[in-house]
């Protein structure tokens, strides 16, 4: 593949290629639909570039292999889908506690339980609230195009290294399967903090320990506050979002990922009928771009949150607006992908109801 | 003739498990009358019996015993 070119690429392959070009040395994963194309792509590609691909015996084993590789100081990634991500929560909690960098791809499917293999956004809480045990947070990117899937996967390795944290890419079955033209490019070199914590044998240096056990309660509290300061820094520096036609919008639809693609189509439709509607799309769902949402309340009086779930991100929106505007919700859980027409009808209904 | 040796016991490390006493072939170690800071009666060396076989040190979980040979 050339250094920079536009090619048609499937979401799963874009994730894999971005990881390879981001310098991912190790991929560990366990097959689960709808993300099997990621381990399949990596099994071929990592071999080509002489790096490590290993199919673990479970999601639990895979995330712990990632932990070992991260502690050894290399860039490592795993991928899975909802039930598999549940199994990885133990490892995510340990990665957060030990402050180890790693990239976790989460191709969300319908749930709870085995659910189905259709696109869903039912794992927003799990992704944005840590999911595993203990007082931690984790940056979560929610791409809405294959280009973003590529770009954010690549960038997430840097974010992981800068903050020494696991980073999640939250996609859904649609994002994984979609084929779009994208520009594949190399990673831009940036200054990263030195990896002075890694374990590679205590050769001419004092021995090091990587651990999460802190029995002393005062020390544990201090560690929790240290992590909190790091999360506060992320809250300041990491939030990202896209605004589409919000300048004069009386009603703003708020959606992320696949739902945002559908919502954008709906906004274009209702705009052609003269309705002043815009789209706000969180790109990072943790940290949630709450300040940007809050400042939207100055010009728009009605927010409509649309999710492919029974309503999870809507909580974050309501927290951000603190009751300043009406915050309505429309959801289609279970793997249903509504059409832009359906969403535009919902928008029109609220437009009438709210007498905009 | 067997080698002659001696041992030192760090009595503050000793937890009084008595393994050294059990495995010493020369009965060269016994429990002391006094207590250490942990509050246990530590092992003590009864001088001039040792043949530096190291069995006490091999079994001592606390690495409290060092062995010397002539």
């Amino acid at each position, binding site marked *: 593949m050339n250094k920079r070119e536009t090619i048609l690429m499937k979401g799963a392959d874009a994730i894999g290629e971005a990881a390879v070009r981001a310098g991912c040395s190790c991929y560990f994963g366990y097959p689960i639909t709808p993300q099997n194309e990621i381990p399949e792509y990596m099994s071929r590609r990592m071999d080509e570039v002489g790096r490590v691909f290993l199919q673990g015996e479970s999601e639990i084993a895979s995330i712990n292999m*990632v*932990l070992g590789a991260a502690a050894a100081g290399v860039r490592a990634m795993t991928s899975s889908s909802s039930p598999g991500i549940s199994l990885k929560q133990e490892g995510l909690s340990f990665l957060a506690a030990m402050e180890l960098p790693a990239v976790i791809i989460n191709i969300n499917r319908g749930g709870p339980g085995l659910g189905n293999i259709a696109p869903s956004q039912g794992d927003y809480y799990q992704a944005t609230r840590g999911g595993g045990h203990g007082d931690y947070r984790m940056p979560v990117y929610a791409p809405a195009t294959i280009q973003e899937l590529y770009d954010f996967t690549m960038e997430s390795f840097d974010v992981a290294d800068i903050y020494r944290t696991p980073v999640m890419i939250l996609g859904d079955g649609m994002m994984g399967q979609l084929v779009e033209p994208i520009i594949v490019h190399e990673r831009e070199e940036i200054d990263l903090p030195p990896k002075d914590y890694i374990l590679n044998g205590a050769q001419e240096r004092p*021995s090091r320990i990587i*651990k999460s056990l802190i029995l002393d309660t005062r020390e544990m509290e201090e560690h929790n506050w240290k992590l909190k300061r790091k999360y506060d820094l992320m809250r300041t520096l990491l939030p990202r979002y896209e605004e589409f036609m919000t300048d004069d919008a009386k009603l703003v639809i708020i959606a992320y990922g696949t739902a945002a693609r559908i919502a954008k189509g709906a906004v274009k439709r209702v705009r052609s009928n003269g309705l002043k509607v815009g789209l706000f799309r969180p790109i990072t769902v943790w940290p949630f771009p709450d300040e940007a949402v809050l400042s939207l309340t100055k010009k728009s009086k009605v927010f409509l949150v649309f999710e492919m779930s029974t309503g999870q991100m809507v909580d974050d929106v309501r927290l951000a607006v603190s009751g300043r505007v009406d915050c309505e919700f429309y959801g289609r859980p279970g793997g249903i992908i509504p059409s832009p027409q359906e969403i535009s009808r919902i928008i029109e209904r609220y437009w009438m109801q709210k007498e905009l | 003739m067997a080698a002659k040796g001696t041992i030192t016991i760090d009595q503050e490390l000793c937890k009084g498990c008595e393994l050294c006493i059990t495995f010493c072939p020369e009965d060269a170690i016994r429990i002391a009358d006094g207590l250490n800071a942990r509050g246990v009666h530590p092992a003590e060396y009864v001088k001039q019996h040792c043949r530096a076989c190291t069995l006490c040190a091999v079994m001592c979980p606390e690495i409290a015993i*060092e062995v*010397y040979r002539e």
Partner: protein
Amino acid sequence: MKKIFSRPECLKPTPFHYCPGCGHSILHRLVAEVIDEMNLRGRIIGIPPAGCAVLAYDYFDIDMCEAAHGRGCAVATGFKRSRPECIIFTYQGDGDMAAIGTAETLHAANRGENITSIFVNNAVYGMTGGQMAPTTILGQKTTTSPFGRRSNVEGYPLKITEIISTLPGAAYVARTSLATPAKVMATKKTIKKAFETQLAGLGYSLVEVLSPCPTNWKISSIESFKYLEERLELEYPLGVMKEVTTEKGS
């Protein structure tokens, strides 16, 4: 007078927190002696378990990375695959190795993962206070098998070392005991052999070490060493179960 026995260099001068007569303390020293003698300190990484030995990193003066309960062999795999030049060992108890971590252990062994596991079998859960282990022997009383382990209720003791010895990826599999000075010294030789197996790139190596837990067996240190030899060794026979000496092709 020449000093012929003292603390190994790669153990910090920290007193062990283990109970009087605990096998972990003896085994820590043996592992440290082997690391010193093989001059591995600059390239070895240890993975301590969840359990009494979780604090092993307070004692070993080598690089160490904690693993979640049972995940030692998966974490070790991540290390070894990304740093093949390093020597990687897990230090695991019976629950870690043969209950919660059975899948990680068996699959690492079956892949022929070039790592070493030191498996401490004392047939009881130590840190949590004496509950039944997968290796608790029939009739043995623990706080969760108060009537003695019954095969029809609690099932049979799991001989994971025997199972692993049947796997093609396993290169060196042995069981030793800490019951007597001779067996302690044999254990050290066995650990050395396991590290040599890894250095030669032959595949997975496992040393199961039968070890006393006087506190949770609720007997004295001296009695626990007798129980180890008279009861535990009967259930878990000592010896080398598998030894591969030449590298297999792919």
